[in-house]
């Protein structure tokens, strides 16, 4: 399998820093805004951004994790995880501005499920979407991100892998290109 680096550790850090500043432009002191990471991989981006935002803001923003397993539209249609990760939202999202955070935006189906799951916690005044990587032109549903780390053009059989220093050893985004033998 051939691979291509999309973000190296240095670019990765710059990108996350830029995303934080874009959020600050829109949400100022986060007094009415919350970050919610989608399980299982979006939560790492939230915690990384939280580290950076804490250095800038006097009070850190409220953050939560959201698991979408029970809200998926492909239950019993393919081999998907049955047993969910932890959902942990210990504050009310009623009338809050919610920023949903995930690592990669691809078909948009995860985000659709995420919106569905989110609304069982109340009625936010606004929901925005932040992603580290946007695989553009690949959507199954009319969903777009408000904040994008980097957009990439990919083919369906290619795979984007986001690695995190605290779990995978290094911050890095790579594109894996499967060789097709036809």
């Amino acid at each position, binding site marked *: 399998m051939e691979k291509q680096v999309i973000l190296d550790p240095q670019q990765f850090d710059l990108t996350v820093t830029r995303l934080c500043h874009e959020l600050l432009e829109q949400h100022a002191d986060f007094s009415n805004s919350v970050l919610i990471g989608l399980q299982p991989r979006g939560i790492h981006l939230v915690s990384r951004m939280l580290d950076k935002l804490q250095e800038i803001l006097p009070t850190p923003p409220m953050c939560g994790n959201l698991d979408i397993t*029970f809200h998926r539209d492909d239950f019993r249609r393919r081999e998907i995880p049955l*047993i969910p990760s932890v959902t942990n939202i210990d504050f009310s999202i009623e009338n809050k501005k919610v920023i949903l955070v995930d690592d990669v935006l691809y078909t948009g189906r995860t985000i659709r499920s995420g919106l569905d799951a989110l609304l069982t916690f109340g009625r936010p005044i606004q929901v925005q979407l932040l992603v580290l990587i946007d695989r553009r032109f690949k959507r199954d549903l009319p969903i777009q991100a408000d904040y994008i780390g980097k957009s990439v053009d990919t083919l369906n059989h290619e795979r984007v892998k986001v690695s995190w220093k605290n779990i995978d050893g290094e911050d890095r985004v790579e594109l894996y290109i499967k060789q097709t033998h036809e």
Partner: protein
Amino acid sequence: MVKIGLNFILNKRMSSLSVDHLLGIRNLSVDDIERIFQTAQSFKEVINRPIKKVPSLRDITLANVFFENSTRTRLSFELAAKRLSADVINFTASNSSVKKGETLIDTVNNILAMKVDMVVLRHASPGAASFLSKHTKAKIINAGDGTHEHPTQALLDAFSLREKLGELNGKRIAIIGDILHSRVALSNIYCLQKLGAEVLVCGPSSLIPKGIDSLGVKVSHDLTETLLWCDAANFLRIQLERQDSPFFPSLRDYALQFGLTSEIMESLNKSIIVMHPGPINRGVEISSSVADSSDSIILDQVENGVAIRMAVIYLLAAQIER
């Protein structure tokens, strides 16, 4: 705050249960029990949300088929199915064609002809659920078959215990009361032993089946001795409706010998967890003061019952192919 838990147990997250139906605890593996608990933990979080419902089983219909009276088990199953967005129909024998002589298989096949996917069955005959699973296409969940098993009750008991005690390995659990007529006792013994706990049964010798020690449980006829030994005590209801002839002189006599009171609790000089599957005969198995005390986890058991039943329905439904 964001908790980065190591909550990916990837190898276990994919799979469903090793069984096609939930007929008893006896044929479940330890992995199955762990998987049900892990799923139930997530559903417990769901049922504490403002909107306590997930859309997973929108295309599933479940029938509660109850040939014996039950309030909480049927309600708990009905609520569990509804929280998963499944459709639920209820069938009770008292107002049905069973009275007109219809057989069990005919009754259930008639219900299944209305496109029902899962059946929750309570029946007075041991083995009824297993029999039905061999003769129908639906997924069967045993909600009590005579004096045999009541698997979801045992699962919710063990789940509730684990919330209070942590891992059950090496813990001492006593089951007190009418062991002879109880399906809860047998399922509990299987479940607790699979999780590594030591089990003791206590009651008048007339209510303890002969040969129960072959299951590897201790036997006692002394309440105080039992309570001093155990970390948690599960008091079973005296099932007056199952007793053809009296097994003890009087209810008052039973309450004096095996009823738990706050005086006994105080005399132990240690705290134990008090459980009861309900419905309680207040003043017989447990006095009101103990039932309503902080040692009692009776209402936790009821809350966890919905989460456990959601997990069982969800994991079995995952096996249904369309």
